[in-house]
């Protein structure tokens, strides 16, 4: 389990991470989403021991990470911008990681690299960005670490490869104690794979919940009422995150249980009322909008 408590990190006068407290349970896929500059990468770099928090603690399996090689032996970090040795080939890169990660599975690496159709003896610097990301994921998976931190790793993959990586993750999750932490802007992809989501904004955590629980507690509602009085009463009764009026139609994002919300609306006999599926992206936009990250303010 990874436990971050009141973690802060400053870069000069800039607060990169502001009082983050997160818990990442073992065996779950944790998605870290956030606005640009929210501190996702900084948090991951602290969690894998690259950066030292200015205050607060990050414990991995109850041990500090920074300058603890034994703890770091359980973590594989794939940064947004990967680095490989100059002129190295995939096989040489695997050998490089094998020196550090004693459990590195070379057979599995050869097997996977074949499946992903990456040439083992080709120089990595001739690979495309996506191919490099594939290779990084394969290296991480074959390192057999308990935790794998992926920073924007999925963003450069084509849809087929994304599915392939997801299936590898699924296999690893089934096979062994594996906890991927994925920071990404590609919320649709995270939605498919993540068990738990943490939303970061301006260095702090807005919320951290299981994705299913999150989806059960926030809904997109479309409804229309016969008169304005009923509409006002209903809207005041609901915990609305966001609302928009299109003619007589109210489009709202509302917190609460699905049945409870619908019961409240139906008690006023609306002309029309239905619940629409809410995507992770909509949840993210809604949550960040509450704290002022309003797309309307940015675009208009």
């Amino acid at each position, binding site marked *: 389990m990874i436990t971050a408590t009141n973690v802060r990190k400053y870069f000069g006068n800039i607060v990169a991470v502001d009082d983050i407290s997160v818990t990442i349970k073992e065996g779950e896929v944790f998605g870290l989403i956030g606005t640009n500059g929210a501190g996702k990468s900084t948090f991951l770099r602290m969690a894998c021991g690259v950066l030292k928090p200015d205050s607060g603690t990050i414990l991995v399996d109850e041990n500090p990470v920074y300058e603890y090689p034994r703890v770091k032996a359980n973590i594989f*970090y794939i940064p947004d911008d*990967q*680095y490989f*040795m100059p002129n190295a080939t995939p096989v040489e890169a695997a050998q490089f990681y094998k020196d550090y990660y004693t459990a590195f599975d070379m057979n599995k690496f050869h097997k996977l690299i074949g499946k992903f159709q990456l040439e083992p003896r080709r120089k990595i610097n001739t690979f495309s960005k996506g191919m490099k990301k594939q290779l990084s994921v394969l290296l991480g998976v074959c390192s057999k670490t308990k935790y794998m931190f992926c920073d924007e790793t999925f963003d450069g993959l084509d849809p087929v490869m994304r599915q392939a990586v997801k299936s590898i993750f699924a296999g690893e999750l089934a096979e062994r104690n594996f906890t991927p932490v994925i920071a990404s802007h590609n919320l649709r992809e995270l939605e498919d794979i993540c068990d738990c989501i943490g939303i970061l904004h301006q260095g702090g955590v807005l919320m951290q919940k299981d994705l299913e629980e999150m989806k059960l507690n926030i809904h997109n509602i479309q409804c229309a009422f016969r008169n304005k009085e009923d509409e006002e009463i209903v809207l005041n009764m609901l915990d609305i995150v966001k609302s928009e009026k299109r003619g007589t139609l109210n489009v709202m994002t509302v917190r609460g249980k699905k049945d409870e919300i619908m019961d409240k609306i139906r008690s006023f006999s609306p002309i029309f009322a239905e619940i629409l599926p809410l995507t992770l992206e909509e949840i993210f936009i809604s949550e960040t909008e509450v704290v002022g990250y309003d797309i309307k303010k940015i675009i208009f």
Partner: protein
Amino acid sequence: MISKKLFFKLIKQDLKKRIWCPLIFSIVYFLVLEVNMLRVIENITAFPNRYTYTISTYINDYFFGTYIAAIAIVVCFTAFVCAISGFSYLHSKVQLDIYHSLPVSRSQLFWSRYVSGILLFLIPFVVHVLICAGIVIARGEFYTNTIVAILNYVGVELIIFVLTYSVSVLAVILTGYIILSILGSIILFSYSFIIAVLVNALFDRFFHTFALYYASSAEYILTDGILGISPLAMIKRLFTDPNETIIADERFYKYNPDCIWVLVVAAIVYTVIAYIAYLKRASEAAGKAIAFSAAEPVIKTLIVIPAAFFSGIFFNLLLINNNPDGWFMFGLVFGYIIFACLIEIIFRMDIRGIWMHKKQFVFNAICTALMFIILKNDVLGYNTYVPADSQIQSCAVSIESLMPLEYIVDLPEYKGVYYVSANEYRMRTMEMQGNPSVMELARLAAKNGLRYTQYHYYDGIEQDPEYCATMEREQSYRGISFAYKLKDGKTVYRRYVIDIADTNTLKLLMNIFNDPSYKIGSIPLFGDGWDKEYNIVICTNNWDTSTTIELSAKQRSALLDAYQSEYMALTLRTVMDTCPIGTVRFLCDRNSTDTMYNSDTDTMLVYPQFEKTIALLKEYGFDMEATIHLDEVSGICVTKNENRAVAGQSSTETTIPEDLTIEYTDKEEIQQILNCILRGDLYWPIQNYTNFYDTRYDVYLKHEDYVSDLYKYYFKIGEIPEFIVSDE
């Protein structure tokens, strides 16, 4: 679990990654080692007469000895390359994200990189040295001492490498860009040395009493103490032969073994500092100019202020005769602005960053201005400093230009014989005590603060009334140096200008010169040479070139006693008023084959008052008072020195200019000239304290059919024959 095995794996990884380093080094070593060795061996074999040494000597004493210093330059270069290539990953966020996320401690990362850097140098170097050894074996010149020489060679170069390497690694760790790492390496490598040069230059520029008297004192300032902590200073000291100015047999100086330990300790210290800095360096420092932001303003100050003063000195030197203070200030301001802006641009890598730190710009400007004001106005009283009598253990004085003979003396600290100037010898050896005139003159000189006026010479300056008045006024100015040897063990040097036209000054000066301890401290013959067994004396008089007299023990004792006692009684008044009549030079057995460099002292003057000495020399076969017979001189050549309008200037000409020369062959005229000429070389040691030589004419004697230019003669002042003047 991970430790040792991983450590070696990391080294292996790093060696693989930087395989280009040993390849480049190998090419360089091949050229400077094997190729160079074969080239010289071939030359020695082909042209043995051109060389004063054999192949064996070349290999053992030069190639694996003196050549260490030359190879050290290459080694320093390899150290820079190894450090920058090995630790520059600290400047890359991308690389740091990988290396610092791996399950390896920073400590292991540091040491693996550090060791692999050393191996990158050492492996190819040793291979090439072994190839050289193979060449030596093939030539049949390999002896037991060759092994020792090779081990020494590799050992010394390794120490130099580690020292330079550790400093460069530190520079890379402290900085965030390659360009700054290179600059940082150069600065760390030589900072104290550069500052020592600057301090020396500033003191020389601003304090007219500043003086260095040991021939090696400038060297000492550059390489010792706090100003010698830079590797450059240490390496320079290692390879500086303290006896380099000695006139001795040709030999191959290798290095000073006493300094090796200084380098070893320094290498360890710099390595430890680099290691601590590495551990403390935050990963987010990648890409920042300076990894430790707190150090940034300090570094800027330490660079910008000295750079501004260097600029001031540069402009001052460039335009020394035109308002030097103004040009110094211009250089200071110009240099300050340029360097302050430049360093900001380098630190930010953005020209818009020039004014990012206005407060620091102002702060450094104020510091620079304050330092300039302090130096310019001598706020700290450097020029007027004279220690209290109670602080002084003893004092050394050197009346400059008064018998400034050069000496060869034993200097125990350098374990050998050293060639020193009169001033240096006096500053070292003289210990005057109990003569109140010494400190009185020092205080008077410091208070008066006289100095020579600097003029920009141009044709016709002699017509400038101000110039003439100044020259007239300063004609009686003389230099005098003091070494205040304090009770706390320190020695403080000052050089003053005094005016001997001032009665009180002259009186004090006479009291100093007349003091026997001044004479004992002035001349080795009366100091450490007292007990030496001089068995030869070379004598000259006004006419004779030189006569060598071999002395028996009894004669030596009698002559030395007589000369010493009479010299001790010599007063400055006598020196100023009396023409010397000849010279004596005492030589020892050990040097009797070469009279040029074998005396402990140069020629010593003999005055008419030295009656006992003159009598003894006459007894031993040399007449100091002898006159030249008219028959010995077939003619006299008199040359007018047109450019020597001011009395006291000496000619540097070595040939007799015929177009300005008139030859006199008439016996009567010759006799008249002989009656009023004095030998020139008797004059120069006392020229600034006498006034009886007229140097407007050079006079040469002609013996039979040749003109002897061995001695130049001058007319006595006011005694130039009429016909000489009318013949002009």
